[in-house]
């Protein structure tokens, strides 16, 4: 006897299918009674089939961009056809400031702002203070004892 349906996602229907198979192919008779050992084994088999079917169903859905629901899978499938979806970006700001080096004992030729944390926001944006960083070093020349950092783009985060 051929199995009726391979794509069942309902536990009771899977269990019924196994019972139908046993009814036609086995000389054991107690599968209909919930207390029997055979019924316990059928329950385990049906549960295993149910979980496997569910997983197979989920996987086959996630393979196609039309039916995928997890974002990382949609992004992965979209990348295959040449589209990279945008994601959240941090807030950016342009800042300018100058450093007076005339009081230093030796006059530097250039001044470098190291990458990393640069400044924090005032609490006027809310109760929290946000930190801003730069990703690369910024070097500016010292002209007449003053190093001017103009339009340095800082990104929120560390």
């Amino acid at each position, binding site marked *: 006897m051929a199995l009726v349906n391979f794509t069942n996602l309902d*536990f*009771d229907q899977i269990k019924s299918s196994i019972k139908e198979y046993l009814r036609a192919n086995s000389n054991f*008779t*107690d599968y209909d009674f*919930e*207390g*029997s*050992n*055979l019924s*316990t084994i059928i329950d385990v088999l049906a549960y295993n089939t149910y979980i496997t079917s569910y997983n197979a169903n989920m996987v086959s859905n996630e393979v196609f961009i039309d039916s995928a629901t997890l974002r990382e899978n949609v992004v992965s499938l979209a990348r295959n056809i040449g589209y990279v979806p945008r994601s959240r970006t941090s807030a950016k700001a342009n800042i300018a400031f100058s450093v007076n080096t005339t009081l230093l004992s030796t006059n530097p030729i250039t001044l470098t702002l190291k990458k990393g944390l640069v400044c924090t926001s005032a609490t006027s944006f809310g109760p929290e203070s946000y930190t801003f960083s730069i990703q690369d070093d910024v070097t500016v020349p010292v002209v007449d004892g003053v190093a001017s950092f103009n339009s340095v783009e800082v990104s929120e985060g560390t």
Partner: protein
Amino acid sequence: MPVERISQSFKDLSMSFQISPLNYDIIALKNETAIARSLRNLVSTLPGERFFNQNLGSNVSRALFDNINAISASVIRDEIENTIENYEPRVNLIGVDVSPDYDNNNFNVTIRYEIVGIDVLPQQLSFALQQTR
């Protein structure tokens, strides 16, 4: 004309999964033995233990942790009776006796029943219920 009697047999797997020396097949439980095993399974199954069948089983294990007395024995007897009447259609329950065994810290259970469908004498199943099995 002789009276036609419909007799059915019951056949179940043995959970020992041992090989029968007679036919080299897995050992099977038949008729009275299969039903006795089924009753024992039902009594020792907790509700919620079986997949997608939250009500199957009995709550005797909960009562086993109460004080050993006649009240607990009565609760256990009711649980066993309800379970068998609801989930074992192959038997007609005659009675359930539960007596506390104070010295061994357990309950002695005796279930008396008739098997429906096969021509055998009324059966009796006895076992002890302890907190751990």
